[in-house]
């Protein structure tokens, strides 16, 4: 028996480096060594917290979504602006999507499963990868090179994934384009408006949360939905929210006008907590509520 275990250990030990290399290779093979007049000048490779060495505290954004590692490279070409590619491999497609929702403020679908581009950058997500491509200088050639390498990487990622179910549950009517955030770290609870300076609704890596903007700027309200692992956890969070925002209200869906004249409501849907903040009228929260409860998700 002991020999068997020794054999298993030796086999695992011998093959582990190969397995690790294979994992790295999977991401690196998304990056061509050459394209057009560009060639890789140096590679980037960071795992977990080693990403601090590359982007300091900015790495926490990715770590809060479950980062496996970042692989990338810098491309140089004669007389051409340098192009940098960073491919963030996340623990799940949902997390790659979540990081994407942090960056984009409008919806574009030219690359991957959602993208955003500017004069010197392009980012997109696809499957469990979040890709950022940037150029050293804003030149006409920069945009062309960025789009070219984005297209190559997009094609090299074979799979597409579904977006998290909780995002499907967002009513589309009056939803601000690109105006929602998927997350599971409480830091992002205040992304669109101040809700609390602490983890009021127990958001964690075991919860799925989405915060969305509805209506135009003058008629804006915000919908928070959080899915918990079980009903007990959801009820606990809902009670905390209700105690803080509507301590005297009764019923399963208290609606009340707050001190600034805006309307608030919160309710439960199975393991899901829902809340609407900053609504400008009682009709606004009722309309949004009706859309949610009649949703198939």
């Amino acid at each position: 028996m002991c020999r068997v275990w020794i054999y298993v250990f030796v086999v695992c030990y011998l093959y582990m480096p190969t397995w690790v290399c294979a994992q790295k290779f999977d991401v690196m093979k998304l990056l061509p060594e050459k394209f057009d007049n560009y060639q890789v000048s140096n590679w980037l490779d960071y795992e977990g917290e080693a990403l601090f060495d590359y982007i300091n505290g900015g790495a926490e954004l990715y770590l809060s979504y479950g980062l496996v590692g970042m692989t990338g490279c810098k491309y140089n070409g004669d007389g051409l602006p340098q192009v940098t590619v960073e491919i963030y491999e996340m623990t799940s497609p949902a997390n790659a999507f979540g990081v994407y929702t942090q960056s984009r403020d409008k919806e574009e679908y030219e690359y991957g499963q959602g993208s955003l581009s500017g004069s010197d950058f392009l980012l997109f997500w696809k499957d469990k990868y979040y890709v950022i491509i940037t150029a050293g200088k804003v030149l006409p050639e920069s945009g062309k090179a960025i789009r070219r390498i984005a297209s190559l990487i997009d094609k090299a990622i074979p799979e597409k994934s579904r977006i998290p179910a909780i995002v499907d549950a967002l009513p589309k009517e009056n939803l601000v384009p690109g105006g929602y955030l998927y997350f599971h770290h409480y830091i992002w609870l205040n992304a669109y408006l101040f809700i609390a300076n602490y983890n009021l609704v127990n958001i964690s890596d075991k919860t799925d949360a989405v915060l969305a903007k509805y209506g135009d700027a003058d008629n804006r309200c915000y919908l928070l939905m959080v899915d918990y692992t079980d009903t007990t956890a959801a009820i606990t969070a809902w009670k905390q929210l209700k105690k803080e925002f509507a301590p005297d209200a009764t019923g399963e869906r208290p609606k009340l006008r707050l001190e600034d004249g805006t309307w608030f409501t919160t309710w439960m849907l199975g393991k899901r907590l829902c809340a609407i903040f900053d609504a400008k009228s009682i009709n606004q929260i009722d309309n949004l509520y009706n859309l949610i409860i009649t949703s198939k998700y």
Partner: protein
Amino acid sequence: MENISRRELLKRTAMMAAGGALFLNRPINTWAMESEAASKVVLIRNQKLYAGGDTPDPAVCEQMIDEAVCRLTGLDTPKDAWASIIKPTDIVGIKTNQWNGLPTPSCVNDTLKARVLGVGVTEDKVSVDDRGVKRNPVFQQATALINTRPMRTHAWSGVGTLLKNYIMFAEKPSDYHEDSCAVLGSLQELPIVKGKTRLHLLVMFTPQFHHVAPSKFAEEYSWKYGGLLVGFDPVAVDSVGLRIIEAKRREYFNEDRPLNPPAKHIAVADTRYHLGTSDPSKIELIKLGWDENSYV
């Protein structure tokens, strides 16, 4: 720092009467409600800073620093003003910021070093450094520090601030990342910096008010503000800088767009670490020079 929700804040704001909605959109006020002392902050701006193109004019930069320091100290000449800040016997570390996207401009580093030398500090006893400060003999023996960096939005701390600039003095910077870097104020307790900082300069030449990727300077989300904030209180200076960033975001996006995440560490530096004041009503803001679109 106490736990505060939107509802609790609304109740308090209602009690304070006017300005409720605006108040809510200022996370800095959300996190800080207990500051006491007034602090002087000088904002100087010059439209000619970028008259020659994309590089700040060194002569204008020098003039801005000198004028701001004179006004801050209440002394008439730069020589006297600097002599009131640095002694000839000091060993001076100028903590700069080398982030490649938006570093402290060289004209700021050069002017600060020149003024320190002008006081009588010898060349071997002054150093400008960022990532190497822990290994730098001048910083290791420093009796005085000058803290300078540009302001920009940051993916985890809300904004890159003077308070955050000292993270390179930490043994392990990531130890200060928890709760969106709320504890950055505690860096001031590190023996290598404690009680040594004589002056804070927050560079607002081309601040970055939004970003799409943590690793990349977002040129399209920066603008030539041509400003410099100078003070003795890093919390006050950072909070004025933050107000400028927030105002620019409101103007650009045409709606309230809070920083994500909020810059909690500025107010926590006030309420928990008592390093200064983040409350705008307790900051004496002195504005010099170009005033158009100053946002504060």
